[in-house]
């Protein structure tokens, strides 16, 4: 082994693996073991149920849309925070982290109060025919709320390190502003945007606290998969809860792997040959 500046590769790797095993893999193994109790027939019955499918569709579809929305808005907010100097910028910057810090139940109650038909925002949206609270749209709003900081925070350092002369080079080569944005800036940010997307997606799929308050939780309509798991637990259907949990886990994992592959591809220029 080559000499390294910091010693202790063996011990630190061992520690890292043991820790990962204890904190992440052990609970997952327990979940898998518990879920296996349901059997093949039980699993097909569970996954065949329209209510399960609707809940999974809402959880995954909502999370995908919310993450996509967050990428667009997060890019805008990150850009403003990094590129411009204006009074209150630091306060604005600090506010971005609020969804991280707020207890999710508080966020959920606040959101449902706001968007309820008689709430501050809801009373204006209701006459327009837009129902937010107790609908899938409410689920989406809550998912956007909790995922938002991830995109902004992953993007900020990368935006700050973008060299201005690259944009100037594009302009002097004759590029219009929109061409500079879509051909130069966006491709260079793509890997980071995908990281933010993956984080926001993972957070939104697993979100429980804030969503259930605003969702209304109508089966087949605005019921998310994590709530279904909790219901199964309340009915002492541990195997069913574990199986549904395992299914969600696999789907999340598959999505994250796909995002990660996409990210690799979009950042292929950053790899070095040596």
């Amino acid at each position, binding site marked *: 082994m080559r000499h390294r500046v910091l010693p202790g590769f063996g011990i630190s790797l061992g520690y890292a693996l043991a820790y990962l095993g204890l904190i992440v893999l052990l609970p997952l193994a327990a979940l898998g073991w518990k879920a296996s109790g349901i059997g093949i027939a039980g699993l097909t019955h569970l996954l065949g149920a329209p209510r399960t499918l609707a809940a999974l569709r809402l959880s995954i579809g909502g999370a995908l849309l919310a993450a996509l929305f967050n990428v667009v808005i997060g890019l805008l907010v990150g850009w403003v925070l990094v590129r411009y100097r204006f009074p209150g910028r630091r306060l604005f910057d600090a506010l971005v982290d609020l969804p991280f810090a707020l207890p999710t139940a508080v966020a959920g109650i606040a959101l449902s109060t706001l968007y309820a038909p008689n709430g501050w925002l809801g009373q204006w949206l209701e006459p327009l025919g837009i129902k937010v609270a107790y609908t899938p749209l409410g689920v989406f709003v809550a998912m956007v709320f909790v995922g938002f900081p991830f995109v902004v925070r992953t993007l900020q350092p990368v935006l700050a390190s973008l*060299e201005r*002369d*690259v944009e*100037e*080079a*594009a*302009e*002097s*080569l*004759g*590029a*219009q502003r929109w*061409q500079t944005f879509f*051909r*130069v800036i966006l*491709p*260079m940010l*793509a890997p980071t945007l995908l990281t933010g997307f993956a984080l926001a997606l993972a957070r939104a799929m697993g979100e429980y606290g804030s969503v259930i308050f605003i969702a209304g939780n109508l089966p087949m309509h605005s019921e998310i998969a994590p709530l279904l798991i909790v219901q199964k637990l309340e009915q002492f259907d541990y195997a069913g809860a574990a199986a549904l949990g395992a299914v969600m886990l696999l789907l999340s994992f598959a999505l994250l792997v796909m995002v990660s592959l996409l990210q690799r591809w979009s950042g*292929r*220029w*950053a*790899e*070095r*040959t040596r």
Partner: protein
Amino acid sequence: MPLQLSHLNRRFTEFAALNDVSLTIAPGEFLALLGPSGSGKTTLLRILAGLDYPDSGTVFNGEEDFLATPARQRRIGMVFQHYALFRHLTVTENIAFGLRVRSWRSRPSRADIRGRVERLLKRVQLEDFGGRYPSQLSGGQRQRVALARALAVEPDLLLLDEPFGALDAQVRVTLRRWLRELHEELQLTTVFVTHDQEEALELADRVAVMNHGRIEQVGAPEIIYQQPATPFVCEFIGKVNRFTVTRNGEGFAAGGWTPDGDPWEGRFAEAQAYVRPEQLRVAVAPSQPAWEARLRHIYLAGSVAHLDLHVPALDQALEADVASEDLSRLGLHAGMELRVAPRSAVLFPRDASGATISEERWLWHAAHRVHA
């Protein structure tokens, strides 16, 4: 069509980056903007590029008002100090960028673009690197890609901002020669910014020396070197010895050395004299009317040897350059006594307040050149 810059002023909050700068750039010319950092040379280049705008003044490219033309329509090629390559694009895509962003009416066909990129890759000697990303290239290769990218749009004006600043010494010299050859071939009007005087003198047809937002002197490299217009140019370009000459009786003198004549006819009592190290004549025999000097140290730098001399009459140190082979011919060694005298000098008179007056420059040459 000459490029005409008139009375440009540009102020940043705390200092004036450009102070009434006027300059004419001839077509096909290779011009260097030379100066220390903060002298305004980069600001001037950025104004030409359309990346910055002056507070007042005009820039005309022939009949065309450059300041009313957006950067993307000026037909310029710009090369940045830190390359500014698009790191998510391959070398080929980088070079083709300026052609691909054109509107479909003026955009060349795919085949034309491919052909042009291939010719440019050959020109910058990177034929086999078209598929690589900038992160897989060395500094010198990246700068050549940046140059090819700028040339791809067939600009009327090539602007280079410290193009070799981030490269190591050897690559720098090679690229310099190569750029000079390229210019001779293309005859493209080129303006480049540098703080490296050697680079400016070696490359450019004409050098503009800048200091504190002003152009101190514009001229051919040999004029800048041999006939500096101001004390700043004397001290900034090359090495120079500086000492004071004072008027006594009929003429000026400095510690026993007297430049014959007085062009100022007694109007000034004091002047500042500049003598280049190679313009100091060194002799062993005490024959000439000159200073006595003690040779303190010899620094051999290849073909040239720098002599570190102490002159008691001036009470200061002087540096003289001689050819290396003269060391043995004259039997020079540290600690020996020598005689030195200027062959030529540039003198600026000082007024009563001690400020030098550039307009009254005196280029002095020894009447009889005696080779040491």
